[in-house]
C-alpha cells in the first residue's frame, strides 16, 4: 500500500497474460531453437546436406528477428508490466533474488551476442567456429532459464523460505526441478513447431519431406519430456494447494485440462503432418500447430498463475499485495492509514487496494453483474467474508467502516433498480435469480457449499425464520437484507427445491 495503484480499465490478468504468454512462447523457442539449430547444423555438415543448411539459415533469420527483438523486449515488457501492476510483489522478488537476476543478465549478454554472431556468421565464419557459437548460445540461453525458473517457481512453492528466509531455500524450492525439466521439454517442442513453420514454406520434394519428418520428431520428443514432468510438477505442489484447487478453483483446473487437449492436438498434428504425410505440410497447418502449441503452453501458464490464488507469493503475500505478516496490524489499524497515495475518495482507494487487482466493475471478474440490485449492507457483508466466498480470495483485513466504504463505492457503479425490474422476472424465476445473487456465490447448486439437501421439505414459515436468522448461521454468512418482494420470491423458489439437490 506504499505504492499508488494503477487503475486501468481492463483486467490485470489479461494485460499481464497478453505480454507474458507471448514472451514465454518466444523465449522458450529461443532456447530450444538454439539447440535445434546447432544440432541440425552439425548433422547437415556431417552429411553434406546443403538443403538442410539453407533451411537452417532461413530459420536462423526468423530466430534472430523473433527472439532478439520481440522475445527480448517482451521480457523487459513483463518487468515493466509487473512493476506497474504489482510493485510490492516485484520489490520482494528483487530484494531476495537480485543477484540471481544479475546472474541471469550475464547469461543474457552472452546469449544476445551469440545469437547475433550466429546469424551473421553463416557466411563469415569457419563452420567449426560457427557451431561453437551455436553451442555457447544454447547453454547461455538454457542457463538463463535455469535461473528464472527458480524465481518463477518460488512464487508458487516458497516452502522452507517462508521460515528461514534463505535465498537457496526459496530458489531450489519443491517445484524447481520438475518445472525446469518440463520447460526444457517445452523448449524442444517449440523449436520443432517454429522450425516446421519455416519447413512448411520449402519447395515440395524429397528434401522437404525429410526435413519436416526430422523436425516433427523434435516436437514429439519435447512433448514426451514435458508431459510426464507436468505430472511431476503437479505432484510437487503441496497437497493442500492442489486439493483446494480441485475442490474450489475451477479456473486453474479448467486451464490444466485445456492444456491436455491442446497437447493431444499438437501430438496428433505432428504425427499426421510430420510423420505420416510430411510432404503435405503447408504454412496454414504449421500456423495451426503453432497456435495449438501456444494454447497448450498458455493454458499451463494460466494454471500456474491461477492455482496460487489467493496469493501472489504463496503464504507470504496476497494477490492484492498485502503481506500475510501485516494481517494483525491491518485488523487493528485498518487499510486507510497505510495507503500512501490517496485520490481523495477513500472508498475508491480502499476498493483499489483491496479488490481492484482482480476485480473490475465491468469486464473481467466483474462486480456489477454480481451486485446489481442488491443493497450496501449485503455488499459490505460479502466483502468482510471474502475469504470464505470461493476459497481463492484474500481475506478482507480492514475495519468494518472500511468495508462499508468499499461497499458504498461499489454501489455507485451498480444498477440501483429492484432486481425484479433489472432482470424482468417475477415469482420462482425471480427467486432463483435472487438465490444465485445472494446465496449461490457460496452455495452453488451441486458445487462446493451446496445446501440444497438441508433446504428441502421446509414450510414457508421455516424459510422465513431461516432468512431472519441467516447472519447467525455461520461465520461470514451475511444477513438477508432483501425487501419483502425478494423474500417472498426466494421462499417461492425454496419451495420448489427437491431432496437430493436441484429443483
Amino acid at each position, binding site marked *: 500500500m506504499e505504492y499508488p495503484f494503477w487503475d486501468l480499465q481492463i483486467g490485470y490478468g489479461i494485460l499481464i497474460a497478453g505480454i507474458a504468454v507471448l514472451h514465454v512462447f518466444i523465449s522458450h523457442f529461443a532456447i530450444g531453437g538454439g539447440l535445434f539449430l546447432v544440432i541440425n547444423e552439425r548433422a547437415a555438415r556431417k552429411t553434406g546436406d*546443403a538443403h538442410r543448411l539453407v533451411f537452417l539459415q532461413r530459420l536462423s533469420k526468423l530466430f534472430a528477428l523473433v527472439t532478439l527483438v520481440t522475445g527480448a523486449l517482451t521480457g523487459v515488457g513483463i518487468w*515493466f508490466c509487473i512493476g*506497474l501492476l504489482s*510493485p510490492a510483489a516485484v*520489490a520482494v522478488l528483487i530484494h531476495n533474488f537480485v*543477484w540471481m537476476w544479475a546472474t541471469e543478465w550475464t547469461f543474457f549478454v552472452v546469449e544476445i551476442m551469440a545469437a547475433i554472431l550466429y546469424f551473421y556468421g553463416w*557466411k563469415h565464419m*569457419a563452420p567449426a567456429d560457427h557451431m561453437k557459437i551455436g553451442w555457447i548460445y544454447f547453454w547461455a540461453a538454457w542457463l538463463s532459464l535455469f535461473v528464472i525458473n527458480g524465481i518463477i517457481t518460488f512464487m508458487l512453492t516458497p516452502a522452507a523460505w517462508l521460515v528461514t528466509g534463505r535465498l537457496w531455500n526459496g530458489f531450489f524450492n519443491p517445484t524447481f526441478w520438475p518445472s525446469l525439466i518440463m520447460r526444457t521439454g517445452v523448449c524442444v517442442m517449440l523449436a520443432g513447431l517454429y522450425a516446421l513453420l519455416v519447413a512448411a514454406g520449402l519447395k515440395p520434394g524429397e528434401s522437404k519431406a525429410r526435413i519436416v519428418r526430422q523436425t516433427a520428431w523434435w516436437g514429439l520428443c519435447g512433448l514426451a519430456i514435458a508431459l510426464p514432468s507436468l505430472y511431476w510438477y503437479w505432484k510437487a505442489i503441496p497437497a493442500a494447494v492442489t486439493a483446494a484447487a480441485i475442490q474450489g478453483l475451477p479456473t486453474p483446473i479448467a486451464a490444466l485440462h485445456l492444456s491436455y487437449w491442446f497437447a493431444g492436438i499438437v501430438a496428433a498434428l505432428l504425427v499426421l503432418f510430420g510423420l505420416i504425410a510430411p510432404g503435405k505440410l503447408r504454412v496454414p497447418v504449421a500456423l495451426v500447430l503453432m497456435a495449438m502449441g501456444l494454447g497448450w503452453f498458455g493454458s499451463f501458464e494460466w494454471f500456474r498463475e491461477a492455482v496460487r490464488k489467493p496469493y501472489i507469493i504463496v503464504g507470504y503475500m496476497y494477490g492484492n499485495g498485502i503481506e500475510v505478516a501485516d494481517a494483525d496490524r491491518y485488523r487493528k489499524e485498518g487499510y486507510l492509514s497505510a495507503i500512501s497515495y490517496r485520490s481523495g475518495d477513500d472508498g475508491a482507494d480502499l476498493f483499489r487496494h483491496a479488490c481492484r487487482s482482480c476485480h473490475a466493475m465491468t469486464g473481467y471478474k466483474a462486480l456489477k453483474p454480481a451486485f446489481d440490485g442488491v443493497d450496501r449492507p449485503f455488499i459490505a457483508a460479502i466483502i468482510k467474508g471474502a475469504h470464505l466466498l470461493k476459497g481463492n480470495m484474500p481475506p478482507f483485513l480492514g475495519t468494518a467502516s472500511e468495508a462499508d466504504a468499499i461497499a458504498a463505492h461499489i454501489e455507485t457503479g451498480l444498477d440501483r433498480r429492484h432486481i425484479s425490474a433489472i432482470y424482468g422476472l417475477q415469482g420462482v424465476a425471480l427467486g432463483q435469480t435472487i438465490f444465485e445473487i445472494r446465496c449461490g456465490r457460496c452455495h452453488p447448486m451441486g458445487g462446493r457449499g451446496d445446501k440444497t439437501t438441508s433446504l428441502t421439505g421446509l414450510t414457508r414459515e421455516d424459510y422465513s425464520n431461516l432468512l431472519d436468522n441467516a447472519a447467525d448461521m455461520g461465520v461470514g454468512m451475511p444477513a438477508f437484507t432483501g425487501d419483502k418482494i425478494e423474500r417472498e420470491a426466494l421462499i417461492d423458489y425454496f419451495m420448489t427445491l427437491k431432496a437430493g439437490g436441484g429443483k
Partner: protein
Amino acid sequence: MAATVTLGVAPLLFLQLVYPLQMYPASIVSAWFFLLIIPAVILVYYLLYAAAFCLKGGKPAGTGWLWPALLGLLYVSLVYSSVFSMAEHPDLIRQLYARGQGGFQWNPAAGDYAFRWLHMVLGALTVGGFFAGVLGAKDAGIFSAGKKIFAYGMAAAGAAGLAYLLSLGDLLGPLMRSRAIWALTVGVVLSLGSLHLYFKRRFLLAGVALFASLLLMVITRHELRLLVLQGTFDPAAWRVAPQWAAFLIFLVSFAVAAVLVVYMLRLFFSFSGSDPENAI
C-alpha cells in the same frame, strides 16, 4: 540495439532494488506512457532492421525507415527523463495521482527535465558520432562526418548540461559544494581530452576517456539525486542482508560472460573470409 537493450536491463534492476519507493510510483502515475516504451522500442527495432535490409539490398528507400525510428527513440528518452525526474519529487507524484489514477499523468514540470533530456539526447548523438568516426576511420568522408557530429554534439551537449545545472536553482549551490564538483570537473576535462585524442586518431584512448567521463557524469547525477531526495529518502539507510554466495556466483558468471564475449568476437573476426561459400 539488442546489446543496448540488454545492457540497459542491469541498471533497471538495480534502480528497482534501491529506489522502488521512488521509481514505481512515478512510473505508475505515467503508466501508459511508460508501458508504451516497449511497443515503441519493438517498432524502432524492426524499422532499423528494415532500413538495414533495404540498404544492404542497395535500395536508397532504406533511409525512409530511419526517421520514424528516430521519433520512436526520442519518445523513449523523453518518457524516461519525465518519469525519472518525477521519481525525485514524491509530492508531485501525490498531486498527479490525486488528479487521475488511470496512468495518463504526464510530468508537467517540464522545466525540471527539459534540459536534462536535451543533454541526454545530445550526449547520445555525440557518442554516436564517436562510433561512426571510429568504424568509418578508413573512409575520409565518414570520419569527417563522425568527427563533426562528435565535436558539435559534445559542444551542444555541454551547453544543454550547463543549462540544466543553471535550472537547478537552489540546488546548484549545495551541488557545487558537494563532492559532485570533482566528478563534474574531471568529467568535463576527460570529455575534452577525449575530443583531442579523437582528432589525433588515438581512438582507444579517446574511447576510454569518453567512457570515464560518462561514468563521472553518472556519479554527478547520483549526487544530485541524493541532494534532491534529502530529507525524504536516503539509500544508505536501507537495511542490507548480504548474499555472498549469490554475489560470488554473479561475479564468476560476469567474468565468464566477459571472456566468452571476447572469445566469440575473436572467432567471428578471425575468419579470413576468402571462401565464404565454403563456410556454408
